[in-house]
């Protein structure tokens, strides 16, 4: 299941819903991304006041659904969930949540990391950090590209 939303979410409730009624699940791996209070900008550490997430409605949902389908084709998952927020957030706020349920621990962990790695390089979101010295668009990171590359080629990173 995927959700793109402005509202916050409750991880406890999301995890309960994810595995509810399915007692074949032995393992749930999950990841939460949070807004950090500081960011390196032009070589200096800057205080973040707010972070605004822009996205491409329509394509976002399509890409997240593709990424989730890919994870389910690679690992034996009982259930999976991707929630990604957009709009203006503050330090400490939840940005993204990914969870994978499986009967096997390693499958749950691997699928969860895969979802995060592909999401970082494929899902059309952009972060604008509001600092003392104005708004700064976050740069993409080579480390994220490398993290995604370890899972093999994406079908659509040819752009």
């Amino acid at each position, binding site marked *: 299941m995927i959700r793109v939303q402005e509202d916050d979410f409750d991880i406890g409730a999301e995890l309960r819903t994810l595995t509810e009624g399915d007692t074949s699940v032995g393992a749930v791996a999950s990841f939460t*991304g949070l807004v950090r209070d500081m960011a390196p900008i032009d070589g200096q550490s800057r205080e973040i006041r707010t972070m605004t*997430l*822009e*996205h*491409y409605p*329509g*394509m976002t949902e*399509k*890409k997240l659904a593709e990424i989730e389908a890919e994870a389910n084709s690679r690992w034996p998952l009982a259930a999976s969930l991707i929630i*990604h927020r957009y709009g203006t957030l503050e330090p400490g706020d939840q*940005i*993204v949540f990914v969870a994978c349920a499986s009967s096997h621990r390693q499958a749950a962990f691997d699928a969860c990391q895969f979802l*995060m790695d592909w*999401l*970082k*390089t*494929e*899902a*059309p*979101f*952009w*972060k*604008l950090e509001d600092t003392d010295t104005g708004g700064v*668009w*976050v*740069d*993409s990171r080579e480390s*994220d590209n490398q993290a995604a590359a370890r899972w093999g080629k994406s079908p*659509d*990173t*040819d*752009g």
Partner: protein
Amino acid sequence: MKILYFAWMRQRIGASKEDIDLPGDVTTVDALVDWLVARGENYSEAFVKREVIRAAVNQEYVQFDHPIKNSDEIAFFPPVTGG
């Protein structure tokens, strides 16, 4: 043709979306970028580092030699930074 811009592409161009009539001789993403750049400084600044821009046609990532037609939705944006 519907064109969408996101993040700093949107800011530099000064629009999030526009509808254009695609000229008959503009048949690829690359040719469209050339045509846009010729329209004004805001476009030439937005596309100054063309190799870093990503393009999506009908919400699928494409390379810049990808064919386009007037009924397509095309989007230009910087590398994504979600998650």
